[in-house]
């Protein structure tokens, strides 16, 4: 193939691999609906606070600038019907219908919804007729009860309140199952029906899918995988590397879910920058020629960093794990592995095709492809480092030292264990070679000894 064709191919690949830097940003919560769902032996309670500016379906009478509380009976009925239809609770897949509904208007400064008991207490007292609540400046507080068959049923919830606002219309749900610790959820109309008390298989299935979705949409993780693949071009050679990557990212992912990761604005851009750096490093190592037999060690270390990145993807979804946090984390990992294997299969095929191009076969191909990857990742790294600079690194305080110490300990143990395992593996290989077995195929990279001699 001609050099010009190669250039176009390379440019096309670079375009495919390019992805804009996107950072998540918290939506403001001023439109949030605040609710409790409490399960008693024979009934469920929904206690909900809806900002009045979200309640377009009910028109409360006005007296000048303020609501006419004394004459708001009909409007209150209309509002309760609207909220009852907008928020639906299911028991074992069947929608529940409210048995009772009570409501009142409340001033915006009221803090009763800090606990279920104080919220219920507030709603049991009607608003004073002379209280002055300005138009759209206050809340509708409501209490619904639903008869249920069993407190052990699977309960789910959906909100359609202010559905036209999409993801910006958030509803906090504090789910209080019978004889279990309460859990908090943040849902939007876009989430559809959310299971508040999932069975283990429901939680696991959801997180497997989430894991697959995440790896398929994570361009930087894919590029890292591609980078690992370039010098090997065979699945067998990759096994140790991918295993190390998987084990390592599982450690940080699970550690983060259990609150062991550093917190602060600085950490996400730090991780993003480190991920980009890991790709640059791998690509450069491909170019200069790496000792691929030991590559699984550095891959494992970078896997720890990527695990933090995975944890951000599932941070908002962990609430849907119910009581099955560890299982969900493992399911998420399984999803990532399934996605990784699928991607690797496709990448191997693509690489095989690319290496049919004469100019890209052998070391040249490794160098060209790695250079393209390095170039893309280099720009990611610079962009992300700019963000990190803006946020700034934190001053290390005592709590930070403790967190760092725990991670350093974990890394030291892992690295120490890995080195010991590597040593054992080398000895085992040497023994096999001495007994006449062939060593595994040598990958397409300049051996370290050869580089040293040249």
């Amino acid at each position: 193939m001609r050099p010009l064709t190669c250039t176009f191919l390379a440019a096309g690949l670079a375009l495919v691999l390019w992805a804009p830097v996107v950072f998540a940003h918290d939506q403001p919560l001023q439109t949030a609906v605040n609710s409790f769902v409490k399960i008693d032996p024979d009934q469920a309670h929904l206690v909900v606070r809806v900002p009045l500016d979200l309640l377009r379906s009910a028109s409360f009478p006005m007296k000048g600038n303020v609501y006419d509380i004394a004459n708001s009976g009909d409007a209150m009925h209309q509002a309760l019907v609207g909220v009852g239809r907008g928020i639906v609770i299911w028991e074992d897949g069947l929608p529940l219908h409210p048995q009772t509904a009570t409501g009142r208007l409340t001033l915006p400064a009221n803090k009763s919804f800090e606990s279920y008991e104080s919220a219920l207490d507030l709603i049991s007292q009607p608003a004073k007729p002379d209280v002055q609540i300005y138009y759209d400046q206050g809340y509708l507080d409501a209490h619904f009860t639903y008869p249920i068959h069993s407190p052990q049923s699977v309960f789910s919830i959906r909100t359609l309140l202010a559905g036209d606002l999409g993801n910006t219309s958030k509803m906090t749900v504090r789910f209080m199952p019978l004889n279990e610790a309460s859990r908090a959820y943040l849902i939007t109309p876009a989430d559809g029906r959310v299971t508040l008390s999932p069975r283990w298989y429901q939680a696991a299935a959801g997180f497997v899918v989430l894991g697959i979705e995440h790896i398929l949409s994570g361009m930087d993780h894919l590029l890292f995988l591609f980078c690992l693949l370039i010098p090997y071009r065979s699945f067998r050679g990759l096994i140790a590397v991918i295993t190390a990557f998987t084990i390592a990212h599982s450690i940080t992912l699970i550690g983060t879910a259990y609150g062991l990761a550093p917190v602060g604005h600085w950490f996400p851009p730090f991780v993003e920058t480190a991920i980009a750096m890991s790709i640059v490093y791998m690509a450069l190592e491909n170019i200069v020629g790496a000792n691929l037999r030991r590559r699984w060690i550095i891959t494992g270390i970078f896997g720890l960093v990527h695990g933090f990145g995975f944890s951000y993807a599932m941070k908002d979804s962990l609430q849907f794990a119910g009581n099955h946090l560890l299982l969900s984390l493992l399911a998420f990992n399984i999803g990532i592995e399934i996605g990784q294997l699928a991607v690797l299969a496709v990448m191997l095929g693509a690489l095989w095709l690319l290496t049919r191009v004469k100019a890209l076969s052998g070391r040249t191909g490794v160098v060209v492809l790695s250079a393209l990857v390095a170039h893309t990742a280099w720009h990611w790294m610079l962009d992300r480092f700019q963000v990190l600079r803006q946020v700034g690194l934190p001053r290390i305080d005592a709590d930070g030292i403790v967190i760092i110490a725990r991670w350093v300990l974990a890394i030291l143990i892992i690295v120490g264990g890995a080195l010991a395992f590597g040593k054992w593996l080398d000895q085992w290989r040497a023994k096999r070679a001495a007994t006449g077995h062939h060593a595994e195929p040598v990958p397409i990279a300049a051996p370290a000894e050869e580089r040293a001699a040249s």
Partner: protein
Amino acid sequence: MKLARTVYFGVIVLVLIIGLGLWRPDKVKAKSSPDGTPTFTVDPSWPNNLPAPVGSDGVAHQWVTGEIAGTCIDANDNVYTFNRGWEVGVTQNGVLQGNESGAIVGQDATASAIPSPPVVAYTPAGDVYTSWGNPSLIPTGQSYGGAAVMPQGAHGCYVDYQGNVWVGGNGDGVVQKYTPTGTLLMTIGRKGVCDGTPGNSKIGGSNVYSTCGESKDYNASHFLLNEPADITVDPEPDPVTGNPGDVYIADGYGNHRIVVFDANGTYLRQWGSSCGHNSPSCPNGTFGATGGGHPHCVVLGNDNLVYVCDRPDSRIQVFDKMGNWQRNIIITPPSSIPQAEQNAILAAGTRACDIDLYPNIDVLGDESPTSQEFIVNADLGNDNEWILDKASGNMLGAFGQCGIAPCPGHNAAHFAFAHTTASDSQGNVYIAETITGRRIQKFVPNSK
């Protein structure tokens, strides 16, 4: 190899000791601050970038707030600011009077920046939540200040229990009540007319109306104000009328009083007068004579007491709701710091510029559960923010980069003209700067 192994296992032992909490370096740190005193870290990424709307000239014009004079927080922890960037003064008889220092006209000419609307509210995450106020943005010519509905000399603000936003102007005679989206609901006082004698000799500078200013202090009108600095609204029933919604105004750049109106703007009562000079030992119930800010803040506690900043006298005076004096909190450095540092802090006047009770006072709901154990106090003279024990008045700590010893500046957690402060329901504290700082900073509480 042996050395590497020794280092490896040595590090493991060290991090085990720290990681398992066998040695806590924070115990050492705890010695330097009294137990229970909250500590904070500045959030340098708050707020996010302000809008830069593209004008008819096709150029993006970055909003610039100018001086941020007022800081107040609503029930959802949105942070309202009252800004001075739009102010350039009033033209009287063809002559421009009172070119406010907060205006950004010069910057506008050179950097395509435009003043932000007078009121800009931010979400806790730092995005612009809403913005409003007239004039829309600086028009051609500079005479709009006189036509503006909003008060000349943007100053204090307050979000009441009904969600309404109150603003006052220390170059004017009005306090105004707006909806959260900027619809004017009520005005106390009269725009451009103060509770003072005509012919203010000090007209010019920031004094643009002839009856406004401390040299014409009347301290008497039941309808007019004289350069009000701050506002608060009581959700609880008035001790006399039994009606909620009283408006307490620190009528204190021209006048020297706290004046109380009912929810409809009808005068109820007042207290305070000029001390005649400035001193922390001024008689109780009087305020420093000159320098403005006498009083400079008014804050209601959930102990049903009224906390008032007597700025020139560097003290907080505490009254009941009828104006009966209860006690003074003089802003005094702790005796534990070197004498030279104490002297330096005491040498600076205007140490009681603005306060908030901590945690969570701005939204004083009838179920407000907080203990309000502390006072956070913006110290204009020292360019620092103090943390005081509310009961004893003792200074416990500071927000500034250098702790109790102030170090003014423009970096994160430095201050330059720290002017107003407010705390939200999550324990965050916001501190805004005027003349030389022109920004607002967010301080996040450190976990215990």
